[in-house]
């Protein structure tokens, strides 16, 4: 007759025996090893640098992003966009981003929504500038915190991703993002946002928007690399971030950020 001790012993042995070979195969999966190495937290932390002085609002970045990341061209959502700010002499702050500036700013009239436009005379303008926006790949991302199924997650190199196969489409992450970078993909119907063109940067390429910008207003860098020119600018020059008060620790840095920027 089998004793309890013997039964427990052989059960434990059997389970370990079955688990071991599977675990061993898992451990030596070369792709996983390579991914681990590539995403080594001590070596890489992707950051973005926007020089607002250089941006002219042409919208080539938005166009390139839509094509690169397969966001339907005419859909009114976009992973990156450019905002125009116009400050009048009497202290008014006007801002707009028609179609996310996909086609640039083709008119001087400010889009007020509801089909209305406002014309500001040249002589009434105190200052005006453009601000490109994209996902901030926050160090403390609220979108990752609120995802109920773990479909949105941050990799060790700081980029926040979405698992389209696991996203339930509750929209909590969209609600949780203070920057409004998230939306539902019109085709996949799951949460969607900029990921610094992760498929490109992990292969040594630059994000599509960076490549598309003719003026060098957008740059990507690795903050863990002290020799990286982007890192040097962030460390040695005066840069700003968006909506610091939310405690999200955004990793997109801006040169020439103004207090009027929303």
């Amino acid at each position, binding site marked *: 007759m089998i004793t309890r001790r013997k039964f427990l012993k052989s059960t434990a042995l059997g389970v370990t025996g079955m688990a071991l070979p599977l675990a061993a195969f898992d451990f030596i999966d070369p792709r996983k090893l390579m991914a681990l190495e590539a995403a080594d937290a001590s070596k890489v932390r992707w950051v973005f640098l926007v020089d607002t002085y250089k941006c002219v609002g042409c919208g080539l970045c938005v166009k390139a992003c839509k094509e690169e990341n397969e966001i339907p061209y005419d*859909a*009114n*959502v*976009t992973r990156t*966009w450019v905002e125009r700010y116009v400050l009048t002499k009497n202290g008014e*702050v*006007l*801002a*707009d*981003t028609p*179609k*996310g500036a996909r086609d640039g700013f083709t008119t001087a009239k400010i889009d*007020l*929504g*509801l089909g209305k436009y406002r014309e500001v005379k040249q002589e009434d303008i105190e200052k005006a500038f453009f601000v490109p*926006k994209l996902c901030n790949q926050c160090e403390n991302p*609220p979108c*990752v*915190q*609120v*995802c*109920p*199924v*773990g*479909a949105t997650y941050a990799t060790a190199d700081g980029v926040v991703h979405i698992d389209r196969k*696991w*996203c*339930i*489409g*509750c*929209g*909590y992450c*969209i*609600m*949780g*993002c*203070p*920057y*409004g*970078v*998230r*939306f*539902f993909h*019109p085709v996949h*119907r*799951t949460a969607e946002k900029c990921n610094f063109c992760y498929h490109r940067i992990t292969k040594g390429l630059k994000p599509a928007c960076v490549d598309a910008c003719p003026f060098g207003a957008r740059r990507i860098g690795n903050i863990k690399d002290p020799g990286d020119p982007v890192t040097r600018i962030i460390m040695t020059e005066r840069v700003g971030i968006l909506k610091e*008060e*939310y*405690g999200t620790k955004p990793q997109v840095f801006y040169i020439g950020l103004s207090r009027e920027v*929303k």
Partner: protein
Amino acid sequence: MVHGEIWTIKELFVYPNEYIYWSIQIVMYPLMTGLVAGAFVLSSLYHVFGIKQLKEMARFALVFSFALLFVAPMPLLLHLMYPLRGINVLMTPHFTSAIAAFGIVFMTYGTIVASELWFLYRKHFVEVALALRNKPDKTIMEKGRSLLFRALTLGSYDVSEAALHSDEKAIKLLAGVGIPVACFLHGYAGFIFGSVKANALWMTPLMPVIFIMSAVVSGIALCLLTYIVTMEIRKFLASRRRAMPGSFPTQQEIKGVEVNVIRMTSRYLLFFLIFAISLELLDLIFRGYTAVKSWDVLRSVIYGKDFTAIFVLQYGIGNLLPLIIFLLPGLTIRRTVLGVLLVLFGVFMMRWNVVIGGQAFSLSFAGYMHYHLPIIPTDWETFKEGLAGALAILIMPFPLFWIFGKIFPIFTEAGAE
């Protein structure tokens, strides 16, 4: 078309990806869970605190809470882009998210309500099961009923005095444990909103408490309304049966029960209503007084764009008017019906003003979004997140309640206990 675009109209400076993503179903979700929690708290007032006047209402409210329980998660499922993936929340819960605990909180609460119901109706199950078992020549319906009730007894046929006494103890315990769990279920719904730091209107630690109070208010109101309607139907049936002699209660007997129960219940309704209004006003005053960065845009929404929805529909018609109706002496049934209808409307408007109002302004604080509820569905999306979907959710508890009423008899006839 992008999700949300069809019912969102943007004004001034709104970020390109912003739409009203949480629409009517998210208004329905706290409304329904609120009703569940409120109905349960009402039933517990009798079981735990021994408020005798609510005895008749207690059973009613518990069964109704059970019916509502099945409807409560439906709005959440309907609003998902992938409703069939809703189960992922239970499979890989990501516990830093407030939504992840929903399955656990909901199931805990469901188990408590189901067990309490079982203890409450165990004697009835045994009686029916035994009566049907001994009956010769059963019809197919009776055979089915017999099987159902035999299953419902869970094999426990002991209805001795001692066994029933321990049943009562169990009911008291479950009702007692159920109150904090019910409050948690709904306070937790408030937390889902209150913890969104990106949303200036939602983010307040008062949100869960406000939600609990208004939940109890709405739960009591709906129970009162359903109770009155059910009693009216019974009275109508009684008047038809008057010709027949025997055990049926007379019209007068039913009416007597009704007024007593209603007066008592409405007093509790009033108490919770005052508490709910005070908290909401406190929140509003605090926001105005502290006037942080977001106050400019919030003020323009609260006192401007949404003035009618907030001050006329919610506070005026939904809170103040019923307050007067219930406070005036000599409460009649007709006045109660009007009062509870207004209260229910007020709670709905409160949910609306929180959920839709919270998305009425852009994250840029420099633009607005207007919500247009899809009335006529043109596709699946405008159906489930439109008027039709909301009405379906509103109606669903009542057929369920009717079915459950067949298994758990809600009214004890005179002298039965």
